């Protein structure tokens, strides 16, 4: 008994444990219903409200090596795709537990690495069968004209993630109200979970209960997600074309004939609104704005290019968000041009500039006297002396301002947009001479104005000549809101526009200032989802369908390799000559099963978070039930598709009642999702293969040479300790928890769940 216990302890991999505990903090962000969290800094009593993985990791103190790798992975995913970070974080947690479990069972590290990596590859190949092509969605746009389409859909989501859509938002508002007055009950920076059961559970429960009573059958079948009125057959499924699987699908030809011929365009997504609703993942309000922005951009581009131009690309770099906290939600809207907040002191100026085309100058950097372009080194040792007794009358800044004004007057410029800061003094002077100066303008906005007005961006105002000045910009107040409302935002919003400018501003408003950031984040998430779907011209059937296919595929692979032995997996290892290759068959089912458990956990958490189930156990049972059905059916992907058509033919629609025709599909984007999976597994495998942490880079000073010496002492001590220990490999390395005490080379890592 004692022996067994020791072995288990030595097999604990500290890096993996850290990963799973870090990942645990983001569990509630999975799925469309995201519970917000408060992060409170105990020292300065500041708090932030966060509702996304990226913001969570930004706020956590992840200084340990593993923590840093994790936040690096999340940041990279976010920078590249702006979506998929919650999936990434969750899978990191799920798969690091899976890898640890494999270690527990004595699977060699190299085998865990190759089987997991190839297992995921196999999943990624498999899910191609659930891709839905997206083509010509903008062809129908001229017919619909307005974007009222969304309104009709806004009530519901795909059934797998079925919740009355408003509750998500409402719940968050409730949360906020409830939480705000009692910050003491929440948590501190060291990372205890924010979600406090007393506060949140009751609402979730109520919601779950109403759902349960309402549609028990829907829930049962909701896994298969699609309740779209159209039939769905995927003729391009690799599954159907594969010879070795043909016995599983009894009559492939008949299958295709039956459905495919009946509705030729059924397996495509040709409708922009359908696509948007599918990609909104419960965030209708953001998606509505995205849709409006896309439409506006489309119309813009079409009028510029004429009808015969290149295919339209949704370009999110030409969308700008302007956050106005303090205004009611209903003020959120999408407008052509650039909307920004300026100080109320410019009111009269704006009034005068209104209703006339004005000339603009674009400044790349700061607009201050001391600003020099990047790469210019100021010499510190230059001293100016006066040769005569005549003192200059003006300070050098005043001289500079006069110079600037001269130039502006010379070229008749009334608007200056600068990417950097602007000298306060200059703004004042310019306001007097009826010129509007706006600083801190986003680079993409500058670019849009440069294109539309013909202005050329310059670094210094002295560079301005006739060629650099742009024409025809209009300034107006935004929406002519009563000033007393706009005042609450410490300034007033104005709108700048030029004929044909390819720029759309999305105004985001929220009465709750703390919500502003997450609102902006959510908008961008939706925008990038749509952008990727259009760019890749394909989406996945969403609502967990792809993950479910991965789960059942791995399950089948595991069972196959149990029965078939070694044949199925030749070539799964880099190094085929090693003994590991021959013992692959022995361990493969175990590792695949563990990997599949990760998907299982993902799906259970997803539907548990969606509040359809009162416990994760229930959710897990639900998944298990469908998993069994899918495996028994022989081909999981056809099982998924057939369940789709059953839903469509109306057998299970009683629960959804008359809304059926309006319940849209749920879609997921392809590459960002797959990359999130890969990134998650890569991180887990990287940490799994790591056995030591070496702390380096000490500054070479007198004091630190002491610590340099102590590095060697440290190693010697470590070695001495190792000599006492009987276990050879695992105990040697600090990342494996050592019974004898704190590993000398490993940094202490704050434990999140003490």
């Amino acid at each position, binding site marked *: 008994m004692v022996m067994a216990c020791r072995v288990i302890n030595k097999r604990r991999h500290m890096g993996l444990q850290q990963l799973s505990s870090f990942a645990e903090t983001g569990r509630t962000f999975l799925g469309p219903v995201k519970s917000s969290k408060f992060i409170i800094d105990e020292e300065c009593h500041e708090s932030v409200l966060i509702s996304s993985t990226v913001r969570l990791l930004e706020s956590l103190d992840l200084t340990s090596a593993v923590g840093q790798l994790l936040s690096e992975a999340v940041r990279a995913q976010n920078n590249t795709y702006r979506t998929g970070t919650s999936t990434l974080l969750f899978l990191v947690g799920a798969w690091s537990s899976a890898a640890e479990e494999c270690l527990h069972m004595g699977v060699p590290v190299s085998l865990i690495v190759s089987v997991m990596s190839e297992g995921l590859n196999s999943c990624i190949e498999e899910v191609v069968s659930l891709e839905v092509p997206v083509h010509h969605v903008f062809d129908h746009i001229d017919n619909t004209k307005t974007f009222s389409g969304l309104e009709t859909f806004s009530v519901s989501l795909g059934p797998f993630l079925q919740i009355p859509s408003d509750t998500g938002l409402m719940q968050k508002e409730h949360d906020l109200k409830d939480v705000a007055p009692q910050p003491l009950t929440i948590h501190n920076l060291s990372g205890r979970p924010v979600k406090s059961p007393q506060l949140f559970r009751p609402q979730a429960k109520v919601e779950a209960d109403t759902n349960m009573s309402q549609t028990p059958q829907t829930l049962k079948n909701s896994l298969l997600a699609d309740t779209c009125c159209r039939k769905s057959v995927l003729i391009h499924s690799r599954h159907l074309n594969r010879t070795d699987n043909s016995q599983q699908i009894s009559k492939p030809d008949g299958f295709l004939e039956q459905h495919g011929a009946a509705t030729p365009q059924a397996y495509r997504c040709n409708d922009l609104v359908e696509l948007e609703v599918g990609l909104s993942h419960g965030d209708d309000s953001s998606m509505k704005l995205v849709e409006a922005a896309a439409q506006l951009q489309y119309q813009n581009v079409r009028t510029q290019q004429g009808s015969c131009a290149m295919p339209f690309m949704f370009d999110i770099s030409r969308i700008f968000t302007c956050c106005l906290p303090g205004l009611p939600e209903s003020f959120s809207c999408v407008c052509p041009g650039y909307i920004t907040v300026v100080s109320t002191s410019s009111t009269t100026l704006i009034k005068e500039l209104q209703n006339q085309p004005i000339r603009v100058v674009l400044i790349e950097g700061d607009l201050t006297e001391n600003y020099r372009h990047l790469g210019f080194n100021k010499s510190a040792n230059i001293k100016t002396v006066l040769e005569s007794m005549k003192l200059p009358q003006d300070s050098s800044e005043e001289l500079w301002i006069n110079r600037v004004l001269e130039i502006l007057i010379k070229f008749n410029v009334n608007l200056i947009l600068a990417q950097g800061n602007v000298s306060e003094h200059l703004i004042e002077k310019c306001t007097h001479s009826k010129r509007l100066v706006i600083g801190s303008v986003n680079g993409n906005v500058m670019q849009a104005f440069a294109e539309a007005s013909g202005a050329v961006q310059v670094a210094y105002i002295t560079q301005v000549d006739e060629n650099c000045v742009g024409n025809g910009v209009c300034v107006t107040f935004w929406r002519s809101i009563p000033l007393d409302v706009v005042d609450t935002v410490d300034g007033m919003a104005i709108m700048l526009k030029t004929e044909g400018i390819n720029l759309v501003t999305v105004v985001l408003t929220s009465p709750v200032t703390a919500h502003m950031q997450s609102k902006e984040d959510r908008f961008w998430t939706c925008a990038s989802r749509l952008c990727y779907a259009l760019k890749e011209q394909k989406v996945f059937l969403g609502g967990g369908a792809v993950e479910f296919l991965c789960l059942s595929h791995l399950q089948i692979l595991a069972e196959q390799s149990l029965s078939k032995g070694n044949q199925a997996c030749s070539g799964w290892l880099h190094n085929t000559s090693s003994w*590991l290759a021959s013992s692959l068959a022995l361990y493969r089912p175990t590792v695949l099963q563990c990997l599949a458990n990760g998907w299982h956990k993902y799906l259970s958490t997803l539907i548990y978070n969606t509040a359809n189930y009162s416990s994760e156990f229930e959710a897990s049972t639900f998944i298990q039930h469908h998993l069994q059905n899918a495996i028994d059916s022989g081909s999981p992907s056809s099982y998924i598709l057939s369940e789709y058509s059953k839903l469509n033919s109306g057998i299970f629609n009683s629960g959804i009642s008359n809304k059926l025709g309006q319940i849209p599909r749920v879609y997921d984007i392809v590459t960002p999702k797959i990359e999130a999976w890969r990134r998650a597994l890569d991180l887990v495998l990287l940490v799994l293969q790591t056995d030591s942490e070496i702390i380096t880079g000490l500054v070479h000073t007198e004091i630190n040479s002491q610590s340099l010496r102590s590095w060697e002492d440290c190693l010697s001590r470590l070695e001495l300790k190792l000599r006492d220990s009987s276990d050879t490999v695992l105990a040697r390395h600090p990342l494996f928890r050592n019974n004898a005490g704190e590993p000398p080379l490993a940094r202490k890592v704050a434990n999140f769940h003490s």
Partner: protein
Amino acid sequence: MSRLEAKKPSLCKSEPLTSERVRATLSVLKGIVTSCYGPSGRLKQLHNGLGGCVCTTSQSSALLANLSVTHPILKILTTAMQNHVSCFSDCGLFTAILCCNLIENVQRIGLTPTTVMKLNKHLLRLCISYLKSEVCGCRIPVDFSSTQILLCLVRSILTSKPACMLTRKEIDHVSALILRTFLLTIPENTEDHIILGKSIIVPLKGQRVIDSTVLPGILIEMSEIQFVKLLPVKKPGSLKVALFCASLSGDLSDTGEGTVVVSYGVSLENAVLDQLLNLGRQLVSDHVDLVMCQKVIHPSLKQFLSMHHVIAIDRVGVALMEPLSKVTGTRPIGSLGSVSPSTYGSVKDWCTAKFGFKHFFHLIPNEATVCSLLLCNRSDTAWDELKVTCQTALHVLQLTLKEPSVLLGGGCTETHLAAYIRHKTCNEPESILKDEGCTQTELQLITEAFCSALESLAGSLEHDGGEILTDLKYGHFWSVQADSPSIVNWSNLLSRCGCGLRNSQEELSWSFLRSTCHPFAPQTCLPHEAAGSANNLTLDCFTAKLNGLQVAVETANLILDLSYVIEDKN
């Protein structure tokens, strides 16, 4: 007032190797390098503990550079390894492990350093002359008319670095890319001397590895604004190029010490700018089409140039200067004075390209032996590892071009060599005994120490508790699961040897590597068809390994020979 302190006496330690601390540290160092070795080697996280970036690696270069070592003995070792890696890129861990193994083994037998050194050197000579000889059984000549062996070589290098996090498909893709990159650097018209071109690795982090690609010419990254401005300017035909290494930013870079006194009203900045604009005028009148600058170009000068339809690209960076000057035939201009027309060069064409989120100015030279390898990987740490690995692979290909041979990898060369040396010293000891003047026992002891150092080096490839066998015909490396039943039909349990050349069905017999078996003569003379059928072999760089072997033995000799360490305490 400064105060003089009396000098401290120097500290002298004798027999440094006998110190427990040195032994222990050496053994930990060995543990670190050994655990990194091979395709299933374990990774190390290197970071500064203060929130700096985390480097996950199993490369000797990264490890040795970051282990802060103070003891002179360890310093000798790490410096020797670093020197080897800087010259040959590959086989750093091999060298370090072998050196540690040799020191450890020799220390155990307790012979006098002179005998040890003499015999070690002799055995080294035996190894080298065998590896270089025609009859060598672990060397394959490289046939440059087919890519097979070269691809295997590159693939072996990529596979041996697990921190690159590549799947098999990605390994195939990157191997092919590396080989293409290498081929692009070979000039087409060769005379007596081949001067290889240069390949530049361009980072594109965050993208999929599969998106990596190689392009002839040079890619210069630039901002989107610059990119957009460039789009409309396009002139057919070749372009006249000026390349500046001096900063054109308009600052007064070297005012030196002291203070510059300027009268009120005089602006030095404007004076410099005027000078820059004069330079611009000269460039325009010389009909230069493309101005590139290592550092920053003043915005006003840029504006002036673009007004005259001259493309100005700044912030090229020091790394690109040499290849740029090479492919364009320019001499980098270092002053703002008048420019001699002889410094100008030319390029064939240029275009703009966008990869991932980055915008590039793509320069297409007249005679291209310079190419850009656009390398992608998902995470920063995996990208860094992949970059170093690619550089290693490219270097190894160059070394192979010079010396067209490769060695069998996967531990087979080491076990084969050990078997050869054992057999040689056992059967023909006379000449050695005569040359070196030592006894038979001494020779046996040293041979044992030397050969088991090689064998346990091969054994370090195993990290998951397997056991190592060697066959008694070729002396190749075979791995088997631990605790396999002792009376077993090996040929059914084993499949292929470490390098992949030998099949277990060839009627071989095996013995455990560390068991005391009778010395046997491993079969020499690799048959030619073996090299031809090489499809999935694990191969090592011949030159790098040979040098590694020499460095390891010589460094071990040097360390074993140390009798005093004198430390200046001041």
